[in-house]
């Protein structure tokens, strides 16, 4: 990854005049981006009076946890949290294994039909999920997998994006290393598992983050593949609750903000801690 462009004297000179303006502009933009999050986080702790106050109250005049209490009473949040977590962990584990396997074959094994398999991966990148859900639903109900973790995990167990990412990274592992191991009598699985995978740990980290997040935030398929509320994932439970006409309107917004905060906050924390991997992952997948 290249370092930000080196400073140019000419730019530095004019920067003296313009820089404050540019910083103000960037800060203003950032404020606009952050406003919905701030509003959500603060509203989650507001009393009913503050939630309906006009003009709007930013800082709660009295902090309260009542919205969270009411939310937990109406929605089994720990259960939805567990469902989302189990599905995301399984999807991520499958992708790490299967995508690296194919990535390795595409990058390092010169087999007949390799370019065709890579063509399949590229084609799979383009297929929109909406095209698949109708027969997938029929298939899953025939297999008895509606309302099961398997039904939620299997369609996402090997994503084309992951294969693409792993292939790009594994290409940079020197061939001499693998050739040496082969001469020493190592089998392909040993080479893959013990030599190549440890060398592409950064790529595995990137893939973990993207797959986990994709699964955590996934909505359409879990919505279709679950009928039993006990099997809902967090987004499905939250959306169903938000669109429920019987939901008590008074104080409902406070509960919804509390729920949204519980869904969004863990992800934002993980993102801030690991932010370097995100930007690198996107740049790699997009440009190579």
């Amino acid at each position, binding site marked *: 990854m290249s370092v930000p462009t080196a400073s140019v004297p000419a730019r530095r000179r004019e920067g003296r005049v313009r820089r404050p303006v540019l910083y103000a502009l960037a800060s203003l933009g950032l404020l606009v981006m952050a406003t919905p999050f701030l509003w959500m986080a603060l509203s989650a702790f507001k009393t009913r009076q503050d939630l309906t106050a006009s003009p*709007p109250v930013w800082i709660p005049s009295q902090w309260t946890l009542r919205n969270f209490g009411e939310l937990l009473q109406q929605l089994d949040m720990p259960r939805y949290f567990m469902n989302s977590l189990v599905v995301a962990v399984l999807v991520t584990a499958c992708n790490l294994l299967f*995508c690296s396997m194919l990535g390795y074959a595409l990058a390092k094994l010169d087999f007949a039909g390799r370019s065709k398999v890579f063509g399949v991966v590229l084609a799979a990148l383009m297929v929109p999920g*909406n095209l698949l859900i*109708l027969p997938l639903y029929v298939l899953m109900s025939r297999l008895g997998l509606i309302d099961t973790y398997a039904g939620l995990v299997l369609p996402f167990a*090997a994503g084309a994006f992951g294969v693409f990412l792993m292939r790009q990274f594994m290409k940079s592992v020197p061939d001499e290393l693998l050739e040496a191991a082969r001469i020493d009598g190592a089998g392909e699985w040993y080479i893959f598992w013990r030599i190549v995978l440890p060398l592409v740990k950064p790529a595995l980290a990137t893939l973990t983050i993207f797959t986990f997040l994709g699964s955590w935030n996934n909505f359409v398929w879990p919505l279709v593949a679950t009928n039993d509320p006990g099997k809902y994932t967090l987004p499905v439970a939250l959306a169903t609750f938000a669109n429920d006409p019987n939901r008590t309107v008074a104080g409902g917004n406070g509960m919804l903000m509390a729920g949204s905060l519980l869904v969004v906050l863990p992800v934002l924390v993980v993102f801030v801690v690991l932010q370097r991997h995100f930007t690198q992952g*996107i740049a790699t997948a997009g440009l190579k």
Partner: protein
Amino acid sequence: MSLVTGRPGGEAVPKPRRAGGARPPAARAPRGGRRNLQGWLFSTPFLALFGVFMLFPIVATLWMSFTDFGVRDVRRPLGAQFVGVDNYVKLFGDETFRTALFNTAYFVVAGVPLTVVLGLLVALLLNNGIDRARTFFRVGFYAPVVTSIVAVAIVWRFVLDPSDGLVAGLAAELGAKAPDFLGSPAWAMPSLILMAVWRNLGTVMVLFIAGLQAIPTQVREAARLDGAGAWQELRRVTVPLLRPTLLYATVITTIGYLNVFEEPFVMTQGGPSNATLTVSLDMYREGFNFFHMGYASAMAYVLFVVIMGVTVLQLRLLKDNTR
């Protein structure tokens, strides 16, 4: 079979580089054969999952689109009646579907340029305009991308709420009256577009920052030395060099926006009076609320063909013509 024994004649010389070229083909065959086997073994898990959960559904959707697949056929899929192109014919006479097509086009035509241009501007601002706290700003602009669309759609619904919402409250404080954003047919779609731009700006920004950093500094310096102003440098040097990134960002944003579903599902349920009904939402309703699955499959295929067509068109229009 182990690797070593399977390589006849290979052991004598440490690195058989095939220098002579006189090796008989028969001696190489087992090696190539095993390589093929191993390559396919490593590909098997992905290909199996791809076959069952992607290839099969793609074909099955096409087949279903030519049948009257309904709720009873979920139990006996092969019992669905073949109806030819009836579903497609019906689709183009369907007022609701035409509205959904129009709304989706509205969302894409307004949303994609806004997202891409704003993403480019923010990338330029963060990459060239400022030099401190870049990471801080980048994290801030990218944050909405990683959050659940459902959660942020619920938040935006509250922000835009006509009675208790933030925007309405701020407008009231200024003595103005904000429109009922999600409740008015004129404002609902622009509101959804605004939210989509807010959420997807970060992806485009990150792509453009990576693209900008790949431009050699010397190129820009040369432009400066030749007397190019900031605007000229941007128009004549930076943007042309960003063309591949621009293409990629436009294509992925367009594909994402053509599939738009969560935003209208959570924020407006397609309303008011179908003003935000998109093709994906219409398909979901026909397929899973009314169980007109054959009809919904035809919708899915029309959308797929539109997506392919638009992608090919963009690749043609935006690809580098200078070469």
